C-alpha cells in the first residue's frame, strides 16, 4: 500500500515537472528581453504591435462567427436527430467525427482546389468570401467538439416532453428551438463555444494556407523572426486557453443534468 502510494507520488511529480517546467520556462524566457534584468518589455512590445491588435481582432471575430454558425448548424440537427430521426444518429455521429480523422491540412487542400478562383464556386476570389471559407473551415474543425457537447446536453433533458409541451401551447418550431430547447442546453452550448474559441484563436494551418491575416500565422511569423516576443505571446495564448477551459469547468458544475436531475 505505501509502496504504491510512493510510486504514485513519483509518477505525479514527474508529470508535474514535465507539464509545469515548460510553462515556467516560457514565462521566465518572456521576461529576459532586457539583458541581465527581468522586465515585461517583451509584453509591452507585443501588446503595442498594431499587427497583434489586427490579427487578434480578426481571429476573435472569426471565432465568434464560427460559434454562431456552428451552433445554428449543430443544435437543430442534434435536436432533430434526438426527436425524430434516431435511426440517422450513427451516420451523423460518424460525420461529425470525420474532422478528427481527416487532417486539417488535407481538408484545406481540398477547399483550395474546389473553391479556387477558377472553379464554379470561387470562394477564394476575394477576401470577404475567403473569410467565409475560413469560417466554414473552422466550423468543420470545431464540429466534433460542438456536436458532442450539444448532444450530451440534449440527452440530459427530456427533449420529447419539452417539445410536446411547447407544441400543445401552440409554439412554432422556431420558437421551440430558440425559446425552449436552446435555454435548456445553454451550458452545453457555451462549453462547446469556449472550446471552439480556444481552437480557433491560434489556429495556424488553415488561416495560413488561405492566406488570411489571422492570429496563428502572426504567431508563426513572430516566432520565426524574434527572440523573446514569442514567449510572451505563448504566455498570453496559454492564458486565453486556460481561461476558456476554466469557464467550461465552472459551467459544467451548473449543468442541469448534474444538479436538477432531469430523469
Amino acid at each position, binding site marked *: 500500500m505505501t509502496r504504491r502510494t510512493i510510486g504514485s507520488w513519483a509518477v*505525479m511529480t514527474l508529470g508535474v515537472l514535465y507539464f509545469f517546467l515548460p510553462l515556467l520556462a516560457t514565462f521566465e524566457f518572456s521576461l529576459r528581453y532586457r539583458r541581465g534584468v527581468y522586465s515585461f518589455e517583451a509584453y509591452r512590445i507585443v501588446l503595442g504591435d498594431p499587427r497583434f491588435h489586427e490579427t487578434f481582432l480578426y481571429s476573435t471575430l472569426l471565432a465568434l462567427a464560427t460559434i454562431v454558425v456552428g451552433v445554428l448548424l449543430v443544435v437543430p440537427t442534434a435536436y432533430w436527430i434526438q426527436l425524430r430521426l434516431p435511426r440517422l444518429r450513427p451516420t451523423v455521429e460518424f*460525420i461529425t467525427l470525420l474532422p*478528427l480523422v481527416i487532417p486539417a491540412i*488535407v481538408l484545406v487542400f481540398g477547399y483550395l482546389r474546389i473553391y479556387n478562383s477558377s472553379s464554379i464556386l470561387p470562394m477564394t476570389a476575394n477576401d470577404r468570401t475567403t473569410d467565409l471559407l475560413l469560417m466554414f473551415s473552422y466550423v468543420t474543425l470545431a464540429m466534433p467538439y460542438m456536436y458532442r457537447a450539444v448532444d450530451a446536453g440534449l440527452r440530459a433533458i427530456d427533449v420529447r416532453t419539452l417539445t410536446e409541451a411547447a407544441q400543445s401551447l401552440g409554439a412554432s418550431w422556431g420558437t421551440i428551438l430558440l425559446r425552449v430547447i436552446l435555454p435548456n442546453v445553454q451550458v452545453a452550448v457555451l462549453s462547446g463555444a469556449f472550446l471552439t474559441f480556444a481552437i480557433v484563436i491560434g489556429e*495556424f494551418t488553415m488561416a495560413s*494556407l488561405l492566406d488570411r491575416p489571422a492570429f496563428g500565422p502572426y504567431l508563426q511569423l513572430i516566432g520565426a523572426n524574434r527572440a523573446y516576443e514569442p514567449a510572451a505571446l505563448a504566455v498570453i495564448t496559454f492564458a486565453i486557453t486556460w481561461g476558456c477551459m476554466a469557464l*467550461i469547468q465552472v459551467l459544467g458544475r451548473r449543468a442541469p443534468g448534474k444538479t436538477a436531475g432531469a430523469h
Partner: protein
Amino acid sequence: MSQTASAPTSPPIASGAPPRRFTWELLGVLPFFLFAFFFLILPTTFLIVGGFQDAEGRFTLGNIRDLSHPTILKAYWISIQVSTASAIGGAVIGFFLAYAAISGGLPRWVRPTLMTFSGVASNFAGVPLAFAFLATLGRTGLVTVLLVSLFDFNIYRTGFNLLSFWGLALTYMYFQIPLMVLIMAPAIDGLRREWREAASNLGGSAVDYWRYIALPVLWPTLLGTTLLLFANAFGAIATAYALTGSSLNIITILLYAQIRGDVLHNQNLGYALALGMILITGLSNTAYIVLRSRSERWLK
C-alpha cells in the same frame, strides 16, 4: 402535468410516422448534410479521385507509384516514427498518470485537478507549444541553461536537439499525455475493486491481477487510444512548422510546401500525398473505433 396535457394533443409526435412525412422529416437535417457534403465529403473525394488521375484527368496509377520517390517515402517514414514515438510515450506516461491519480492512494483532490489540467493541456498545441519548448529545451532555454550551470551538463553535447526527431516527439507528448489521461480515466474507473479482491482471495499476487484481469480488460482501450494518439500526431503541422521550420521533413510539412508552391512539380502527386495521409489516419481511427467497441464489453 406537461405529460398529461401533451399526450393527446400532439399528433406530430405520434410514433410510427406515415411514409409521406418521410421526406419532410429528413428536411430537418438537410443543412447539416449539405454542409458535410461541401466541406467534408466533396473536398476529400476530390483529392482521392485526383490521386488517381493525371494532369489531363485520365485514370492512372502513376501518382501512387510516384509516392515511392525517396523524398516522399522518407517524409512518410519520419512522420510515422515521430507519431509512433509520441503516441507510445504519451500512452505509457498518460496511463501511469491516470492510474496513479485514480487508484494510487493519492489525496482526493489530485484526480479532479489532473483532469482539469488535462482538458487545458490537450488543447495547448500549435505554434505557442513550440515557443514553450524552445524556451525550455532550446539552446538558451531555461532547463538547458540550468542543467549547464547546476550540473555542468549540456544536453546539446549528448547529441540532443530540440529541432529534431526526439525534440518533436517530446514536444508532441505535451498534448498526447493529457489526451491519454482523459480517455483512460473512465476505463480505469471501470476496473472494479471486487476483481482485485477476488484475485487476492484466490491467492493471486498483484502481478497475477494485472496479467489475468486488469490488462485483458484494459488492452483494447490502451491499444485503441495509442492508435488515436498516433493519428492525432500524424496530422499535426503547426507545432512542427513553428519548431523546426522546414528542416525536419515530415509529411505534413511536405504537403504544406506542395500546397504553397507545387514543390513536387505535379499537382496530382500532391493529391496522392493527401490520399496516403487519409489512408493512414483513417485506418488507425477505424482500428480505434473497433477496439473501443470491444472494450465496452467489460467497461461500462
